[in-house]
């Protein structure tokens, strides 16, 4: 037990991150089911307004800060040292500090439920002045701000650690242009974290000072500016969504390549596009503020359209990887293809909302939240499951059951689309977001009802996953130990060591002469022809 509390080993910490995020995922998922139950029909009172407002605040906060992003940090923590042939991360104790701050941030945010006035209820974006008024949720909102501050410090430590590790700890021969694509995406993510999170920390400090020390940053009655909060928040907030997707682009690249039996197509383009996306994402923040009438819409719109280009490069390359390959439709590959299908809708609707004329209608409506649920839920979340199915054998020495995996996938894929496609139409019809009820006009009632059914189907998919984990664990007691490379014909260094790896990661490192060192090891005659 003390091992789990004090070990600085990156694999232990990575698993701690991922297990914690899974707990928060289940909680945030239950919250979303309550939301869909409340909205299944107009005028319901499953939960009252105050409870509802806390629920969607906690759902968004948890999914973003406690699930999608930290799962990627945990996955990166586990994999990056293995993929570059390193014994651990550059700063193991800083790593442990980070995971503790992360776990404490989640507990702090949810502790708000027990505060007088309940948990935070200003939305995950906590716009000022709504978040600086003291009435209603006092303690809960303060706990939320503290939690987000802890979370930002944790994330900054993660950014520092990944950057230093990738710079300093690559094994002999592992030049940067031979690194696996997942590691490159993590490097781009780390850079984004370092550039974006300080702005969040600043915004949170200013909220605390405004709430308790008489500061008036955002209060126009004293010369403050409400839009300033939005600038600070979104300067962080937009890169944050790329922090939440770049690692998963890496996961998809790894999974699609291995299960197509071909090297990743356009490796250089994939690396350059990751950094193009990261760089551009720092310059688009006020596309979240088009409707304020207070920002330079044309600048932000143009920059936002540009991001579609490197994202298109990635799609081109993923398809190129599958082209003329031998596609093994394992559960991990199914989730990866599900990602490609879902994220495409998210990306295309993203290009649409990048246009202010369109955004004037759909900002803060169900169309908009469908866009980001497609990228984060249909995209990142599906990549989370792809990663779990692909790397579970490596991390735990157990392969998850493929039949249950396919049931898990199809329930989630169908459930996801049934839930979120209606939202596009609900938004165009005029349903705003963050509402505990709506008028029984037009198509809203039946669209909402269909969406709620979809949420139930998705929940069944998650249950199938939990069953899969439990059953596979039971089965593993009698199963044969796995070989180093249980999927066969893998590429990257994590498959050159046992399942799970020893404390030091490698008993022996193969020579590193390309971006597919394990594949080269298994196919020496073909490897000899490459550098």
């Amino acid at each position, binding site marked *: 037990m003390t091992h789990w509390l004090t070990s600085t080993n990156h694999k232990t910490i990575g698993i701690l991150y991922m297990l914690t995020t899974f707990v928060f995922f289940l909680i945030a998922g239950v919250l979303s089911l309550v939301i869909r139950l409340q909205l299944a029909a107009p005028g319901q009172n499953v939960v009252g307004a*105050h409870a509802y*407002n806390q629920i969607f605040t906690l759902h968004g906060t948890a999914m973003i800060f406690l699930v999608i992003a930290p799962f990627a940090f945990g996955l990166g923590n586990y994999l990056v040292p293995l993929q570059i042939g390193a014994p651990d991360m550059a700063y193991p104790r800083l790593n442990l500090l980070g995971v503790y701050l992360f776990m404490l941030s989640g507990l702090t945010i949810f502790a708000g439920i027990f505060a007088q006035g309940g948990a935070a209820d*200003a*939305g995950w974006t906590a*716009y000022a*002045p*709504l978040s600086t*008024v003291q009435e*209603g949720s006092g303690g809960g909102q303060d706990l939320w701000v503290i939690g987000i501050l802890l979370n930002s410090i944790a994330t900054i430590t993660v950014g520092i650690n990944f950057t230093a590790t990738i710079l300093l700890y690559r094994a002999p021969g592992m030049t940067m242009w031979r690194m696996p694509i997942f590691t490159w995406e993590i490097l781009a993510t780390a850079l984004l974290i370092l550039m974006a999170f300080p702005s969040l920390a600043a915004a949170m400090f200013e909220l605390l000072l405004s709430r308790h020390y008489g500061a008036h940053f955002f209060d*126009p009655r004293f010369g403050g500016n*409400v*839009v300033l909060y939005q600038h600070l928040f979104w300067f962080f907030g937009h890169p944050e969504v790329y922090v939440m997707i770049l690692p998963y682009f890496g996961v998809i690249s790894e999974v699609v390549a291995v299960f*197509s039996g*071909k*090297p*990743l*197509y*356009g490796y250089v*383009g994939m690396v350059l596009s990751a950094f193009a996306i990261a760089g551009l994402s720092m310059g688009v923040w006020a596309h979240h503020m088009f*409707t*304020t*009438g*207070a920002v330079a819409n*044309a600048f932000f*719109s*143009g920059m936002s*359209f540009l991001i579609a*280009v490197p994202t*298109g*490069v990635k799609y*081109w*390359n993923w*398809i190129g990887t*599958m082209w*003329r*390959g*031998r*596609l093994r*439709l394992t559960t991990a590959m199914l989730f990866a*293809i599900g990602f*490609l299908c879902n994220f*495409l809708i998210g990306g*295309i*609707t993203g290009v*649409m909302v990048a*246009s202010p*004329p*369109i955004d*004037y*209608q759909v*900002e*803060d*409506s169900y169309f908009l939240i469908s866009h980001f649920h497609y990228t984060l839920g249909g995209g990142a979340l599906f990549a989370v499951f792809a990663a779990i199915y692909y790397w579970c054998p490596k991390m735990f020495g157990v392969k998850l059951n493929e039949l249950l995996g396919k049931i898990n996938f199809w329930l989630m894929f169908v459930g996801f689309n049934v839930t979120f496609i209606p939202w596009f139409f609900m938004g*165009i019809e*005029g349903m*705003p*977001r*963050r*509402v505990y009820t709506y*008028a029984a006009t037009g198509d809203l009632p039946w669209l909402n009802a269909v969406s709620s059914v979809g949420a139930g189907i998705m929940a069944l998919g998650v249950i199938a996953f939990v069953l899969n984990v439990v059953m596979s664990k039971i089965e593993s007691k009698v199963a044969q130990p796995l070989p180093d490379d249980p999927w066969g014909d893998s590429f990257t260094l994590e498959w050159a060591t046992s399942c799970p790896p020893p404390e030091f990661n490698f008993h022996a490192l193969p020579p590193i002469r390309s971006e597919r060192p394990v594949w080269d090891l298994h196919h020496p005659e073909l490897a000899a022809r490459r550098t």
Partner: protein
Amino acid sequence: MHPASLQARDLSGVWYIFGGAALFVAVFVYALIFYCLARWRARGADGGMPPQFDRNPQLEITGVVIPLIIVTGLFYITYVREGVVDFLRPGPYATVNVTAYRWSWQFRYAGHPIVVNGTTQNPPSLVLPVGKMTQINLYSDDVVHAFWIPAFLFKRDANPGLPSSFDVTPTRVGVFQGVCAEYCGFDHALMTFGVRVVPVDVYDRWIASGGRTAI
């Protein structure tokens, strides 16, 4: 969509163009993905390693240039249309000062002693003359709200301390829904308002009567 204002007609043009482009790209990419799945799915123990090609610089550059051309076109359309919609035209037929507060709206008809205060139980109605331009000046008394009329395909945030103005020219007589579109706390969901677009003579009579004639 059924645009109910001149601006909405301009905006719906953008919708159709983007919707068309979106459909085209989606169909194209889905076709490629499903083709790969249908044609190259591994079946049984069919042997052999697939061809290990992994690059084609010309194809990859094409994959950059074509999306760049598409988004440039979309941006141009956006830029032109937005300029038309955002532009505040001089000489409105009517001006309404709208103040958002938790959780309803106040409408003050400039130049006339008409003030309408709403509550969540009794949402206010905004009266507009059809075919004439009305300027809306938007304020907030407390937190950030947003004034959204879906039939006009338009919304604008009400930021306290940062008044904002835009104009609308309704094109159809009727009753339309308006909602608050920026989360503002407890009863955000109930912060609605009505929009009654009436013929010009009805509007003029309503104004002259101090907002008392039935419409």
